[in-house]
């Protein structure tokens, strides 16, 4: 069984993003970029399934500019077998990403596609669910545990009231939550070796997918700032402030 993992190049989670002063977006020039943290978890889970003998091949896919090759190389350095970059220099909406992935699913015929539950840049949280719908597969979102056996996946999901376990028939789409696993680091020898592994670079136009934007971003702005507060000296002062000044007790 093949597994496709989708990986996105995003502003590193430690970077405090800055909104451009002209309101056209956030500053991404000269900013550290990394693999979306949830996608690292997706890669790790796919590798563990291969190491357990459940999967035979792990293919890392990214949709984005040429630099997204680095993100795919990171996945390969972690242990993925090969990569596919679907190259585009324009921003693609989650629906278009899902369509690209569904075209690759038709070509590669994986048994499982694992994606992060959301990307930490646009926080949309849509692609896995959309892909599952387009290919007619079940989806298990927010996975904190994944067991694959007998043509089925048993997935424990982090839901609002606690945990829910579902069983989905394969092929299926799974999206990862934080506690699914602890992703491994790529070692230096593996980073060197990753450079020689196969990475197909394909222009988005070649996939015959309608990737036109449906949404227009009119502006991007800073959120309202909270005013800095005060430090109080004692519990008594805190209780007094909460009662008399803030009126929340």
């Amino acid at each position, binding site marked *: 069984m093949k597994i496709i993992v989708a990986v996105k190049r995003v502003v590193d989670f430690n970077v405090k993003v800055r909104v451009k002063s002209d309101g056209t977006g956030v500053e991404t020039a000269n900013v550290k970029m990394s693999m979306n943290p949830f996608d690292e978890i997706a890669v790790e889970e796919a590798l563990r399934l291969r190491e357990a003998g459940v999967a035979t091949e792990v293919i890392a896919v990214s949709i984005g500019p040429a630099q997204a090759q680095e993100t795919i190389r990171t996945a390969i350095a972690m242990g993925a077998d090969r990569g596919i970059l679907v190259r585009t220099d324009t921003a693609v909406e989650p*629906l278009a990403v899902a369509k690209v992935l569904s075209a690759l699913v038709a070509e590669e015929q994986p048994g499982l596609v694992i994606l992060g539950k959301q990307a930490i840049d646009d926080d949309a949280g849509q692609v896995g*669910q959309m892909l599952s719908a387009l290919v007619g597969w079940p989806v298990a979102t927010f996975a904190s545990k994944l067991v694959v056996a007998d043509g089925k996946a048993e997935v424990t999901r982090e839901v609002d009231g606690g945990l829910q*376990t*579902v069983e989905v028939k394969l092929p299926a789409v799974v999206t990862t939550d934080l506690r699914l696993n602890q992703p491994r680091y790529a070692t230096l020898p593996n980073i060197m070796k990753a450079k020689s592994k196969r990475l197909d670079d394909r222009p988005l136009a070649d996939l015959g997918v309608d990737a036109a*934007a449906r949404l227009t971003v009119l502006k991007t702005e800073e959120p309202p700032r909270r005013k800095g507060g005060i430090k109080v000296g004692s519990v008594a002062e*805190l209780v007094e402030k*909460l009662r008399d000044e803030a009126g929340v007790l």
Partner: protein
Amino acid sequence: MTTLLIAEHSNSKLSEQTAKALTAALALGAPVDILVAGHEAGAAAQAASQLAGIRKVLLADDVSLAHQLAEPLVATVLALADGYDAIVAPATAVGKTVAPRVAALLDVSQVSEVIEVLAPDTFKRPIYAGNAIQTVKTGQARNVLTIRTASFRPATAGGSAPVETVAAAADPGISRHVGSQVSESARPELTAARVVVSGGRALGSAEKFSEVILPLADRLGAAVGASRAAVDAGYAPNDWQVGQTGKIVAPDLYVAIGISGAIQHIAGMKDARCIVAINKDGDAPIFQVADYGLVGDLFEILPELTAALPAASEKAAG
């Protein structure tokens, strides 16, 4: 123009998230129908029918919808979709799973986590953990939205809309509910609570977390939250996590205890009306968003604070 709102409920009870998402749905300016899809969900449908401002409640009641799994629920929503120009769901675990599947099958680009409706086709939504706000205009005949409920007041009760039964679509039969571990608690629901008390890594253990956070929460009649670090360390269950990838809360009072204030955590609570931070490190970033900060050893401060507060029950009685 008509809007379909997918209700968040537990069959026996309607979640307040539905009433909050309704406020956003009504802001679209079109009549709103609420879909309650579940099993033996008559009580939730009755509760939905009492929300003011709606046209009717659609009740799809079938055993296949008991756990609101995405596959059967989406099939039911799609069977109804033709009559609607907007399909709206609260951004809950169910809503976040179902809405994008609906959107993809309708060939619509979804707008996630709407925090403000500016016009029927123009919305504000946070990106980068709330560090930037986008204004998005959709050029589509039909829209699919999820609503960040912390940004909307609940719609009021007092209505009496009719409840209409609709057929559940055939279950695609590709998914099955195996089991649920639902945290039973007498405390208020995290996303609806007026007061939230959250603990961080500084608590040091699950035992200490229970020992100092829970009495304060009970004293305040508060829901309990936690930072990602505390959840990862096993001090608190996953559904207590507040932050970019956990729950987004906007209570009147948020008390952050032993939480340093990573941007991902602040993303989940910065819309609280009043924030209190208690932390040993006076330079912790949490103090930059706190209205009131108290620097010191939380294990000394918390028992003193708990004792100094009037009990929630006494206050309610008085």
